[in-house]
Each structure stands twice: as structure tokens, then as C-alpha cells.
């Protein structure tokens, strides 16, 4: 089947990436970050935006969690659970996919 990988399971090893139909953008008019998706506009909060900006198919979730834990001096386990849950929710909605392994 062509197209994205459905029903991905997010873990710390995942390297998530926004698919072409989920666009993270700073809305100048309303001065907020928005995630544009088919027929909807989501308004992620500050930390969610920070995570989404790292969803570039290069960073893995482990690196995102390390970054947030250091920045907010928060307990790593809790951050990890929250980030994975948030990304899994977006993936279930079809707004997040995984970088495909390079085939050589």
C-alpha cells in the first residue's frame, strides 16, 4: 500500500516527522503557533510546539525528552511519558508519521 505508515507506535527510539498535510506554522495575526491539518486547526501549547518543531525525522524522541528534561529541570520519566502520549495521540489522528529507514 502506498502512503504513510498507519498506526505507528511511538517510543523513545522513534524519529517522528510531520507529514506534508500537517503543517506547523506561526500565525502572525493571532500570535500563536498552529498545526494545520485537513479541515482543522489545532493550537498546541508552548511545550507541544517545542516538541513538534523537533519532529523533523532526524531527532528521536529520546533526544526530545532529554532536551525538555534539561530545559525545564523536570523528572525525565514523567516528561517521557507525556511526550510519547502526546505524539501517539497525534499519530493516531494521522498528523504524525515516522521517518522511514533508509534502504541501501
Amino acid at each position, binding site marked *: 500500500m502506498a502512503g504513510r505508515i498507519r498506526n505507528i507506535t511511538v517510543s523513545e527510539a522513534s524519529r517522528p516527522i510531520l507529514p506534508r498535510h500537517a503543517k506547523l506554522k506561526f500565525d502572525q*495575526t493571532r500570535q500563536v503557533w498552529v498545526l494545520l491539518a485537513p479541515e482543522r486547526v489545532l493550537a498546541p501549547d508552548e511545550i507541544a510546539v517545542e516538541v513538534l518543531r523537533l519532529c523533523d525525522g532526524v531527532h528521536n524522541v529520546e533526544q526530545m525528552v532529554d532536551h525538555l528534561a534539561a530545559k525545564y529541570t523536570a523528572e525525565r520519566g514523567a516528561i517521557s511519558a507525556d511526550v510519547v502520549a502526546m505524539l501517539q495521540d497525534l499519530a493516531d489522528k494521522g498528523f504524525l508519521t515516522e521517518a522511514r529507514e533508509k534502504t541501501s
Partner: protein
Amino acid sequence: MSPTEANTNIAGVDPSDGLAVLEQRGSVAETFGIPLAVLAELTHRCPLQCPYCSNPVELERGGNELTTEEWKNVLTELAEIGVLQIHFSGGEPTARKDLVELVQHASDVGLYSNLITSAVLLTREKLSALADAGLCHVQISFQGNEPVLADRVAGFKGAHQKKIEVARWTRELDLPLTVNAVMHRQNLFQLPDIIQMALDMDADRLEVANVQYYGWALRNRAALMPSVAQIEETSRIVEQAQARLKGTLEIDYVVPDYYALRPKKCMGGWGRQFFNISPAGKILPCHAAESITGLEFLSVRSNHSIAWIWQNSDAFNRYRGTGWMPEPCKSCEFREVDFGGCRCQAFALTGDAGNTDPACTLSPMHEQIFKLAEQEAAGGSNRFLYRNFAGGTLEMDGDNGA
């Protein structure tokens, strides 16, 4: 402050109501702020003749359509004032030869673009060019799950097969796909098969949209109105499928408001979070608004900006908010929940757009309308009046009507 809260925030509000999401976050996108998404009806020309078409009965001729340059200017202006998404619709938007150019321009000015199409005019090359131009999402309408009924409803031979083919190309090009299924008495029995069809097509979303009865659909009400029992069965099927397919296929459901207790929050409230642009450039509070006589809708060809028309024109302010409301709306506790329902329906059924929508049980006309719907559902002819520029053509016996 935790990402989980962010997640709850994202999921906690009706996600189709982007404005509510932003309002909840206390952003500056307040009531009457510029809409997040705008519907551009590029043309009323369409090869299909669906008897429930949402276009007005008085269709706009091709010669009055905005030019390519005019549409591009509109797109630029929309992006500048804070619109985030553009829905290219019609009629059939692919009947415009400049669609790829318009989608490219939308991308260039930063608009997220959706194509709402019947699909029958598309080639794989055209769809591929649209994807390359930055198209973000494709919505294809279906009239049934098999060609006999579907082609009869569309009034177009071969339509169904073509739609299936285009749906496949859409997914092959890695574009997200929404299947839009308009439901009525004559095709509701196919709903389980339509859900399966959407799954087989690898669609992301399915809109199960019961016909809303104004314009062409009102003329065809006797042929389309479902029974109460059909609607109850439909709701049951949709709810089950929503639970079963969570995470695989998202299903949006629009109930027919004749059988509801409260009217729908039409367009999220008149002039509150939505406008569309007609083929000739009129800025409208909803796609049926031109059916209301006595309102003057200004065009992008006037000497006013789009933002000015949205904020200041009489047509938008006439039924905005709650100040215009008569009783029983005026003192109703739901007045800011449904904003009095649908103005076009109030006009079509009562002759006055300022009346309470008869879909509401509190309307003095509700009982009468409900009874009429029941009678039509039980005894109406199945014969369609097909939509066209000639004011409609009655289905012939040979078309496999009745």
C-alpha cells in the same frame, strides 16, 4: 504546563471548531475575528447534477466568474488578514483551467489548501500537478457505494467508477483523503457499505452528511427526506463505526436537523467564524445565503476590502450575535449555543430569515414542518429534479427513477 496538558488541550475541544480551540486558549482570535478557513466557490459549473447540490438554484454563469488574477488577489488578501486554510470548491473546482495556478498561489502566500471535488474531471497528471503545487488535502464526494444508484443520483454515467480511480491516485500521491457521502432516503441503506468503501480506499476521514434542505435539496425534499426510523438506524451505525474504527478512520456525522430537537449551530453562528466567496466574488455568510432576498452581499469587486465586508457590511451584521433575535430565541438559554439555527432555513420555510429556525422545537412552525417531513419520507416520489443551469430537469422514467 506539561506536554500532557497540551495534549488534553488539543483533544479536549471539538477539533472541527478551530476557533473554539483558539478562543479557549485566550488568544486574540475572538468572536468575529477573521475566520481560520474560507470556502472559495471557484465556479458553479459542474458535470454532475446532484439533486441536493448546495449551490443556489440561481447558478452563477461562467462569464461572471472571477478571473485568475482576481482569485490570486483574493488569496493574497485572505492570507494577509489571517485566514489559514482555503477550501477550493464549486460547482466543480477542477472545471477551472487555472486551478493548479491558484493552488500554487495559495501555497506561495502560506495558505493550507483543500480540494473539494466530484473528481470526475481529474486525470492522474492533473492531480499530480496539484500535489506538486502544494495541495494539502483532497475531499471526494460519493453518491453511494455502487455505480447504479450513485450514477443515478449524480446524473452522470461512469461517475462512481471514476471517483474510485481518483481516490486511489490520491493515496498513491500520498495526499490525505476525505470521503464525503451525502446521505438521504434513497441511499441510507448503503451506509455500512460506504463505510467499508472508505476503509478500502484508505481514506483518513469520512463525512456522513445528511442532506440539509435548502436550495436544490428543498426542491427535492420529497424525494430525499429519510424517515425517523432510518435516521435512528443511521446514528446507531455511525456510532458503532466510530468506536470500532478509532485511530483508523475518523467519521464526522451531520444529522438532518428536521428531526432534531434543537437547531444546528449553522456556520458556527452567522458571521461568527465562517464566510465563503461565490464564483462572482461575493462574500457570503454561508453558501446558501444568496437565497435570502433583501440582503445585499458585497463583492471583492466592490471598493471594500474583504476584512471590511466581513466586519462592517449590513448583510453580515444583520444576524450576527444575539441582538437581532425575536422570541423565543431572545430569552432562550441556548441562544449562544445554536445562535438561533439557520437563517436560510428560517427564510425558506417561514418567509422571514429573522424568525426562529423551524428545526427548533420552540419554533411555532416546528410541529408542522416535522409532520410534513414524516409524510414526505413515507409517501414522497423518488423522482429527482436534477440540478442544472436551466432551473432543473425532472428525472425521466428511463433514468431508472422511482
